[in-house]
């Protein structure tokens, strides 16, 4: 005979159904009308940005780009719940969160193009350069959070990864450090169902990704990642908890990426069906939230059109600024390896510039 040593529960949160009707009135976050409209504007911007970025990538005017359509609610809703001085540690797909956290758009273009200045985050923007190695930012998150705790600052470190990222050892190590040290951190997983081509069910036998938090001794919550009010609600709870010194939380947002993994040759028709794609598009975060706002008299087609034009202008201006940025050089690269270049690097620099070579 055995008894239960411990019992756990993984909550699932949804606020709006696919048509924008409130399914869970208790979880409707207290946001004013302006904030609600702002959430919609940000999702519209993100959709427009994504369409433009995909076009630019096809024209060869962008470097590396990972499409985001489908994930707007997860991205925008979670970032909206943070304070400007909370610190984000994003992955490479998390460009919209970076932008709305203050990362200048033209620098995100430069990042995509492989220009070093793309990573020179302004001093007053609290965001790390998007990470390429899956999960590497997750073990850095406790370090940022520990800094806040040691200095007694009421700030939170927020990191993003995907379903594939939860298979990395670093995912567990990061959560475990944050849990053991009771740090102000949030681990936000966008489960978009595929790690490039590998489906979620091949990543793990775990029934949910959220339950991986249980092993680290921290709360794990699953949320409808196509529902921006639900995402905001669980994220707000997690950052408030962290800020109050109650420790980290892991959130699994159930979402979907409509586009390819990146614009570097991925073809999603090789690994998922048209039916799957259509089923997810029915849950679209913009349609759902638009219906909700229209029913409250907070949004109109006209307004959306006007905002789309504004978004396009913002994107064009940033693109122009990126285009006007001078190309970086190899000597600049050499100079940025250390605060003071080594003698050997100076010799190598001189070989390249032809100045004072020996």
């Amino acid at each position, binding site marked *: 005979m055995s008894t239960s040593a411990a019992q756990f529960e993984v909550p699932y949160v949804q606020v709006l159904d696919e048509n924008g009707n409130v399914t869970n009135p208790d979880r409707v976050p207290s946001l004013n009308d302006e904030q609600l409209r702002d959430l919609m504007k940000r999702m519209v911007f993100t959709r427009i940005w994504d369409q433009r970025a995909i076009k630019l990538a096809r024209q060869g005017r962008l470097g590396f780009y990972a499409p985001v359509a489908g994930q707007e609610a997860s991205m925008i809703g979670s970032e909206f719940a943070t304070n400007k001085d909370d*610190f984000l*540690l994003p992955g490479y797909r998390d460009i919209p969160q970076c932008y709305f956290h203050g990362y200048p758009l033209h620098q995100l273009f430069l990042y995509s193009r492989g220009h*070093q*200045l793309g*990573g*020179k*985050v*302004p*001093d007053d923007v609290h965001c*790390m*350069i998007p990470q390429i*190695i899956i999960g*590497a930012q*997750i*073990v*850095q*998150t*406790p*370090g*940022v*959070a*520990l*800094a*806040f705790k*040691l200095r007694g600052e009421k700030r939170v*470190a927020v990191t993003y990864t995907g379903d594939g990222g939860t298979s990395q*050892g*670093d995912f567990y*190590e*990061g959560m*475990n*450090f944050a849990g*053991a040290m009771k740090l102000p951190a949030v681990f936000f997983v966008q489960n978009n169902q595929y790690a490039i081509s590998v489906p979620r069910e091949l990543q793990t036998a775990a029934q949910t990704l959220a339950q991986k938090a249980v092993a680290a001794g921290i709360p794990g919550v699953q949320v409808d990642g196509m529902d921006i009010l639900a995402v905001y609600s669980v994220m707000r709870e997690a950052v408030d908890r962290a800020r109050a010194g109650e420790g980290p939380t892991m959130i699994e947002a159930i979402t979907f990426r409509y586009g390819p993994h990146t614009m570097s040759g991925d073809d999603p028709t090789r690994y998922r069906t048209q039916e799957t794609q259509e089923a997810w598009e029915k849950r679209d975060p913009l349609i759902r939230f638009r219906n909700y706002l229209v029913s409250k008299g907070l949004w109109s087609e006209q307004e959306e059109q006007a905002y789309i034009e504004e978004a396009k202008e913002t994107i064009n201006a940033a693109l122009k600024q990126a285009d006007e940025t001078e190309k970086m050089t190899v000597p600049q*690269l050499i100079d*940025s*390896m*250390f*605060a*003071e270049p*080594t*003698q*050997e*690097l100076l010799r190598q620099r001189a070989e390249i510039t032809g100045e004072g070579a020996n």
Partner: protein
Amino acid sequence: MAQMTMIQAITHALDLELARDERVLVFGEDVGHNGGVFRATEGLQKKYGEDRVFDTPLAESGIIGLANGLAVQGFRPVPEIQFFGFVFEAFDQIAGQISRLRYRSAGRFSAPVTIRSPFGGGVHTPELHSDSLEGLFLQTPGVKVVIPSSPYDAKGLLLSAIRDPDPVIFLEHMKLYRSFRQEVPEEEYTIPLGVANVVREGKDATIVTYGAMVATSVKAAEQWSKEKGLEAEVIDLRTISPIDIETIVKSIQKTNRAIVVQEAQRSAGAAAEIVAQINEQAIYHLEAPVLRATPPDTVYPFGMIEDDWLPTPQYIVDTLNKVTSL
């Protein structure tokens, strides 16, 4: 002045830096209450508190990731990897992350992280404790690699490493921890990174080496002097990335012959890099090819044969005889 072992000099250096700069944090596995498995951090948690000197969960990637995040927020972390053979677990966080932070951010972020770690053979450890893996980090742009050979150097180099604005891997040879004592001043002093030390002067051949092989090479030089009446100059690199090629070239201009002695296996490591740089900068001063006295290209052996595997004074003397007979 006090007589100190290398481990005492290291503890003393950490103590000074913790007192001097409140951004300095010391952490890792067993470094807090227990004072480290070699007692390198003995008494420091008691003196500076659990916020400054602390134990972490047992995960090397997590430890260096923690250091990375702290550095991004302006701290000066001094994490310990309990044995350097465990560094593979943290390889991405070192070679993929902290070493690139300055470059990736065009200087917005930097990683003034000093990773301390015991390594080195001859002390009969289990597997993956003794390996000389420093060569891996010579191929890692953006980090410096420091290996002291004495208590005096350990203190001066560790102070420089912690104060350096960029990541430093500070490797402490286990055999040197308690093998001898030396006068170590109580006050602060630094030894600049990237500057070698001529520990024995000679005119007939140059031995370029570092770490525990400095003492072995000096022994070999004494033996060579007695047996052949020839004098070897011994250069202790102290920093193997970057390499102080100027000091090596200056010595070769005098001796015209050189060997490199290292405890790591032969290929593609510090010795190979030193030979390449000598080739580029001093080849016209050479009377013979530069030879390497190293163990063979195998993994670090199990304890039973490690004394047969490591370079001995006799092996170094044989290599000196070879380089002077060419």
